[in-house]
């Protein structure tokens, strides 16, 4: 348990090029496995560098020739594409289809709204006229007038009060006020 923690700290110290913590150093004095691991970690860079040069020597260069032989073909296709593809492709789905769909839907909405506004809504007008006739028949004028009478009465009373007040003031103050 402790060894795995110390090994992690050793590994971390190697990666970050920092000193191994003091308590790990103390542990190394006691633990043979961790001491070996530290030695291995320290030597790995050099060993791998040496072995990399050794292993790379055994590489078969024939693969390179295969790739190089395929290059002119790709270069040709690349240059053809660049010649063709100057600017955006107007007939691609994204540049052509989407705006045309939007325009078509707009035209549809506008035409429907024009039709809706210009066509006479005869049935609706007739139905409204019928409604008012029915209302008049159901509630005669008298009833309506009766319903309005308290307001009318108040209005006339107020008018009379104001007129009498004005007359009183004219007579008292002797002010020639135009009527």
């Amino acid at each position, binding site marked *: 348990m402790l060894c795995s923690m110390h*090994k*992690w700290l050793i*590994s*971390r110290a190697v*990666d970050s090029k920092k000193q191994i913590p003091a308590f790990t150093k103390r542990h190394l004095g006691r633990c043979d496995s961790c001491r*070996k*691991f530290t030695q*291995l*970690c320290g030597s*790995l*860079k050099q*060993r*791998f*560098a040496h*072995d*990399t040069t*050794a*292993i*790379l020597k*055994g*590489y078969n*260069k024939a*693969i*390179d020739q*295969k*790739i*190089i032989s*395929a*290059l*002119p073909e*790709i*270069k040709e296709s*690349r240059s053809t594409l660049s010649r063709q593809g100057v600017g955006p492709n107007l007939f691609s789905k994204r540049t052509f289809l989407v705006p045309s769909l939007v325009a078509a839907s707009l035209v549809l909405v506008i035409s429907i709204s024009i039709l809706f506004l210009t066509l006479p809504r005869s049935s609706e007008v007739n139905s409204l006229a019928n409604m008012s006739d029915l209302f008049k028949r159901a509630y005669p004028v008298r009833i309506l007038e009766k319903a309005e009478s308290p307001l009318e009465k108040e209005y006339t009373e107020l008018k009379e009060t104001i007129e009498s007040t004005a007359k009183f003031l004219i007579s008292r103050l002797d002010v020639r006020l135009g009527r």
Partner: protein
Amino acid sequence: MDKDTILKDLSDEELAADTAAGSCSSFEELISRYSPRLFYFLRHRTASDQNVEDLIQETFLKAFRNIDRFDPKRNFSTWLYTIAARQAVSLYRANKAKKPSLVPMASSQDPQEIVIQKQESQNLWILAKKLSRKEYKTLWLYYAEDMPIKNIAEIMKKKKVTVRVLLHRARINLAKKLDKSVYSESFAGENSAEHKFSFSEIGEI
């Protein structure tokens, strides 16, 4: 100074910029620089030689096609290794890890060949190939390519901490394998040369 010498003096990023400008010879130089390194980066015990060759070819052709997209401010090796790693992942998914047939060692082998194979078996990379794919790749990028952990994380699409953990695990497992191989070597020395280290790995080279 001839053209080859000039190209050899240029940095990877300069060569990539030249390729983008239309120079094929610059890309050929990049191929000669990187193909062996990519070969051993992609060559794991689960990958067959044919698959690796196809992967390298695909990687370079993809890089050549998209060289215009390469930003010269970035590291070319990181860019190329990222393409290679992605190609490997897609191939791995497609093949679902078909194990290559390990070539059995012939009993009547040339003694000189055996000596060469023995020397190769001592190569640490042969031992590292026995680690997991991720561990091997992390080791390759860290030790063979001398890449910082940040770039390795970018290539492998992992966090920096994950790369550190992978490196640590690789070291631990490598230490175990080294212990085993030392034991098997001493055991084989006492018995016969044919028992020494399973040559199935060497057969792959």
